[in-house]
């Protein structure tokens, strides 16, 4: 088991390498100069050149890349140009809201989607199925920013139930925190909810067609029990997969959602950092998000082993 995890962790390295190269080269190819951004618009070209030199931005790209990667390997992601703190600190501060948001979005998604997906599969072709599927199509279709604006107008402005924007850490003020996170959570989780609903439905349908369901039925097991004890465990594999995959989407969506709801998360940090060419932060955040995504999917692979006895990771 440990060996398996170790091997899997090792296999992440090439992926991270690719990501680091892509990100690094993309950022440095982008026009716009962090030195100029730092110094402001009135700086003379000499000042800018001097700062570039002291930041090491005048060195060859390969050298800069190696320097950065060397730092990363020793746990040093560098310092932000603008935030007056290290990238590690910045990520630490901003990861908390993003993770909370993602967790809430996933909870919203699962709470909505698993029961409805299961019921839709059970009553395939029926009215419930059709309306659930209709809703999922709409959920997949409405862009998250449109949904976010609609939620803000309705719940923030018209009903005034929830604050329009901002962020309160639920660990410091639970009620307040949930109040600030619930709208972004829904806006972010809608697409995931739709996806999981559809996956659940398809997976449950698959299971319902399996022989062992007929076998259990032939033993007189009640339909409701068939549905929720037999199928859910079997169907949880594809659902887990899709949850793992949508985590990437959640962080992506967070860039838009966090900007709209003004939540100090990684997405917003990234967007502002791109705008002001804060290279170390951009690189660090994307690498971090990628790592989280990969680790989540590794975790889900491990969960497979728990859910499905056939997947014995020790021997995989």
């Amino acid at each position, binding site marked *: 088991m440990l060996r398996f995890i170790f091997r899997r962790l090792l296999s992440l390295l090439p992926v991270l390498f690719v990501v680091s190269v892509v990100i690094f080269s993309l950022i440095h190819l*982008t026009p*716009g100069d962090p030195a100029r951004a*730092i110094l402001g618009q009135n700086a003379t070209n000499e000042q800018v050149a001097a700062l570039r030199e002291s930041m090491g931005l005048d060195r060859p790209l390969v050298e800069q890349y190696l320097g950065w990667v060397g730092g990363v390997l020793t746990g040093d992601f560098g310092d932000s140009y*603008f935030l007056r703190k290290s990238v590690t600190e910045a990520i630490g501060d901003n990861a908390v809201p993003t993770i909370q948001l993602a967790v809430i979005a996933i909870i919203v998604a699962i709470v909505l989607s698993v029961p409805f997906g299961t019921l839709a599969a059970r009553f395939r072709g029926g009215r419930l199925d059709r309306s659930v599927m209709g809703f999922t199509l709409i959920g997949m279709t409405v862009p998250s920013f449109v949904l976010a604006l609609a939620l803000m107008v309705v719940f923030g402005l018209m009903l005034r139930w929830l604050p329009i*924007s*901002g962020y309160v850490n639920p660990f410091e003020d639970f009620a307040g925190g949930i109040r600030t996170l619930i709208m972004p959570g829904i806006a972010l989780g809608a697409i995931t909810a739709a996806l999981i609903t559809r996956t659940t439905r398809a997976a449950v349908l698959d299971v319902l067609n399996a022989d062992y369901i007929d076998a259990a039925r032939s033993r007189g097991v009640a339909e409701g029990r068939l549905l929720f004890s037999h199928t859910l465990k079997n169907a949880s594999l594809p659902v887990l997969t899709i949850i793992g995959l949508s985590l990437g989407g959640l962080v992506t969506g967070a860039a838009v959602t966090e900007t709209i709801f003004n939540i100090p998360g990684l997405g917003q940090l990234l967007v*502002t950092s791109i705008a002001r060419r804060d290279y170390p932060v951009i690189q660090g955040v994307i690498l971090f998000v990628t790592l989280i995504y990969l680790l989540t999917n590794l975790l889900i692979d491990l969960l497979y082993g728990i859910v499905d006895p056939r997947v014995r990771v020790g021997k995989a």
Partner: protein
Amino acid sequence: MPTPVTGASGIPRRRRSLRRASAVSAIVASGALVLSGCAASGDGGDAAKDVVNVVTPAQPSTLDPQISTESIMGEITGSIYETLVVTDENLVPQPMLAESFERSDDGLEYTFVLREGVKFHDGSDLTATDVVDSMNRWTRVSIAADGAFDGSEWTEVDDSTVKLTVPTASFLHLLYLSDIGTSYPAIMPSEVIEEFGDEPVQDIVGTGPYTLKEWDADQRIVIEKWDDYQSVDAPSSGRAGAKDAVLNEVVFSFVPDAATRTMGMQSGQYDVTPELPFDGLTQFQEDPNLVLGTYTIGPINLVYSDRAGGPFENVVNRQAVNTALDRDPIMLASVGSEELYDLVHHNMTEPQQAIWDTEVGKAAFNSADTAAAKALLAEGGYAGEPVTLLVTRDYTEAYNAAVVVAEQLKGIGVDVKLEALEWASYFDKYKEGRDEWDLTIIPQGTVTDPTQTVGFLPNRAGYYDTPELHDLLARFRAAPTQDDATLIFDEMQQYIETYRPLTRLGDAHNVYAASKDLELPVFNSHFVWWNASWK
């Protein structure tokens, strides 16, 4: 009333993310305006409110008052730092940290006597050394001091007296010393200057009635009432006089998305914003909980690239474009309402009219004569080559103007291609890539004097380096009084008309909004936090 307006120098207002520059500068009505209204008990009516929530688009990149040109910096540090002199409500310079000051008859020497018993936030006393160090640093690092204070020197006379010597007499000196917009001569402890040198300071230590309590990067800056503040014993007037702070805290929140800010104001989540989206004006006019106001933020300029071989290397083609443009539709699209723009034929803004005015160029201004423009184009040898109009989407007013300008130029047969970039790329190209564009539309801040405008600023597009120009600038800077300077302004404007380095499209106004329950004085483009209170 003549209103010498302070603000950023002739540089683009900085907006969006770190470079938001929405100086509340120059109120429409008069020097001072107190926002007030009937208590319409909004939903922010908590008991014993002594906190105000301000929402602005982005945080300043630094709070160093001598270096930063971002007006949000001025908004925040205006009650943290103090200067030797400030203007009262009649825009007359009054002493602040100085007990008194005087100018020598030849205008080459100024003497400032410091006020007794003034302390910094860190508890140390204000000394003449602090002042000299601060002022000398300001002379070096501030863009505002650039030019006008060349060759000047600050010296310590005794423990409580400092002296400024200048090479030539100029009306500009006191103007800039009492300016509290951006990169202003704030006084800070010598230790801080020693530590940071000419780099932006990170220890925000001043002498003002508020101290920096918290800076949560990209989220909020909180300033807090400083209980040990030693107020001037004089009635409060403008920025001068007594500062008896009432509000305990002012929280500046940074919300990048305009729609979110707007809704936040509407829902009462925030109390004040120095900047609503332009179209917010009509929308909020009916809102019973808010008081609105507008102020000039500065011109939107069309600047010509001087790239060799480009169509606008030839001044005739530049004049053709200037002749063709119909500014009203452009500005209407730009700011969305007739109430939110002025058309001014010279390089300064309308509120500055009393000081900076000229008849030069007035007659031919905004002719919108397409026939004449086409003729000029023919004369200039423009043969339909493609023209790139560079603009950034991060400033809607500039971008909106550009869309209409492009349409109008197509109308006279110019093959315009709009290139809209995000700010960082745009600015890089604007400064460094002048051979990659032909026209650009850039929003700029109000300036204190004409030398800060496009055409007179070196290292920018539109700066045609000739002896004639050098001579003109030197003479202007040496004008001992405002009247002398005003005379030379005619010549400067004639220079613009002849060389046409830019076409001014119009001056945009910003809309600010505040809760009706808030007593919030605004003076000379800035909220006066120490006189603000909840009703």
